[in-house]
């Protein structure tokens, strides 16, 4: 059973952390992953940096730009992750834009992920229909869960459809926004969280975008299986480097 599915079966709320591979330093990747697991994080999204991350806000953009400057590439990332499963057990997801994956070759990319022990992929600009038509078989062959997003604007029908083709969790974007642009959730968002919760989807939802602290984590997980923190953690890395990861995670979980 895929580590994501296993993790979801646990009764606890899930804290997932996103970081950009190669940031702040090229070789911080493994170190960050290990520290995150040690600090009690349940799942990790490893960002494959992209030159034109159009769904991301300024914080993640800047970290991607820096990572690329540092020399991060798909090849380098795979090398860094080669032995990751010797030390890390929690689910690992690669989050990246489609073009670098396409250039690597989707088949080759998936194969490599499988070899390393990656559990899933989030590719924001790979549309559902293209995935279904062209890549689903490949993903499944390599035991990879493809995670789809929904937003407050996603129609009920489409949510049901996405639920039907998902087999891990649904990445629920907290509000219409690129990453990092929220601070705290208002009525509109809580209503949206409730509305989705009430749909009783087969896949659990994990909420991302705008989770930055204990308060927003609790708000989000009140209506969902878990929450994903991205920009807030990147900001922490920018300020503190790879030290004090533990205290960052503790400040979320309290």
């Amino acid at each position, binding site marked *: 059973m895929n580590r994501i599915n296993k993790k979801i079966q646990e009764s606890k709320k899930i804290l997932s952390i996103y970081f950009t591979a190669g940031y702040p330093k090229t070789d911080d990747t493994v170190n960050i992953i290990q520290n995150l697991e040690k600090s009690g994080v349940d799942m990790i999204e490893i960002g494959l940096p992209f*030159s034109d991350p159009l769904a991301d806000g300024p914080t993640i953009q800047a970290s991607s730009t820096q990572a*690329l400057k540092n020399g991060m590439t798909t090849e380098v990332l795979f090398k860094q992750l080669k032995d990751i499963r010797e030390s890390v057990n929690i689910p690992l997801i690669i989050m990246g834009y489609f*073009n670098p994956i*396409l*250039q690597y070759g989707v088949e080759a990319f998936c194969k490599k992920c499988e070899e390393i022990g990656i559990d899933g992929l989030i590719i924001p600009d790979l549309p559902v229909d293209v995935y279904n038509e062209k890549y689903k078989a490949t993903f499944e062959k390599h035991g990879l869960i493809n995670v789809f*997003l929904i937003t407050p*604007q996603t129609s009920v029908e489409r949510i049901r459809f996405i639920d039907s083709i998902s087999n891990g969790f649904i990445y629920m974007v907290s509000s219409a*926004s690129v990453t990092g642009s929220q601070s705290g959730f208002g009525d509109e968002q809580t209503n949206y969280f409730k509305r989705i919760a009430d749909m009783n989807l087969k896949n659990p939802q994990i909420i991302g975008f705008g989770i930055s602290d204990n308060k927003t984590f609790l708000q989000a997980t009140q209506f969902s299986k878990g929450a994903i923190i991205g920009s807030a953690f990147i900001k922490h890395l920018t300020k503190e480097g790879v030290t004090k990861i533990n205290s960052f995670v503790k400040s979320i979980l309290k």
Partner: protein
Amino acid sequence: MTYNINEKGYYGEFGGAYIPEMLYPNVEELRENYLKIMAEPEFQKEFNQLLKDYVGRPSPLYFAKRLSEKFNTKIYLKREDLNHTGAHKINNTIGQILMAKRLGKHRIIAETGAGQHGVATATVCALMGLECIVYMGEIDIARQAPNVARMKMLGATVVPALSGSRTLKDATNEAIRDWINNPVDTHYIIGSVVGPHPYPDMVARFQAVVSEEIQWQLQEHEGKTKPDYVVACVGGGSNAAGAYYHFLEDTNIKLIAVEAAGKGIHSGESAATSVLGKEGIIHGSKTLLMQTPDGQITEPYSISAGLDYPGVGPMHAHLYKSGRAQFISITDDQAMKAGLELCQLEGIIPAIESSHALAVFEQKTFLPEDVVVLSLSGRGDKDLETYINYFNL
């Protein structure tokens, strides 16, 4: 083989809508409605009336006598430079603003490179009384100052794109981000035949008025509706798409697409996508783009802000791949020379984008009896400083 779009939104293998889910409702709403709305007689009437009375269409098809003599062939210039706001871009923004109104949007965003599309968008927003935000690379803001001033005059907000190469590509990223953040009330007016389906097709259809006019204008001049060649510069590809549109399927008519080679194709400072590009995804569309082996999009370079884009629209990727169009790369120097030549032979100051197309005559020999229609996509008023500095005038 067809060179037009198929019902799934692809030109051959290029196109599609590679967009984050956050954009899905917007793009889907557009995809479902655009053909229907465009077919409405009321829409057609309003569109055509504005093109005529506001834009100044038809734009003339001008037989360039002295240029023709110089290159010993028959050169007709399609005078998009005479359009209101000075380029072909307004054909599209007029269409899209009418589309946006029918979709009930009241906030408009756009990206711009040379500033022509930004001005054209700010213009139609003023005309309709809609809020307008234009994203523009910081570098382009500096090199196209007159257009920035024009946008401000027209009441638009110009937001500098500070990321990446700080040119058109990055302005487009910023516009997409804005759209993600404002999914309900906002329409994104893309300025070329790029972006997710249905944009490339919609923009091409709005620009198709260009080749529609060429047909009857050529009939008046030459007693036939078909040229031997159609020449156009390609940044994203909208002026070329418009000039080619009604000729796409008639392979007797040769299409020439002109790209910016910057300081030389292999100089590392170029925007010659067909030569340097590979298949990939940019701004929601599968097409040819300049990228590292690793799939990172390259920062392009051209003296011309409107051609300074690392991709081409999917139609053009298909025209290239299929061999339907011949692609020619023109350096900064070649373009500038051709631009000055047009000034002094014909009294027309071309946009530097269009100067790239004009440089074809030094690169390729045509027969004396060939009828060559060249899309003079814009006027050079926005480029005066660049010309003056370049030539030390």
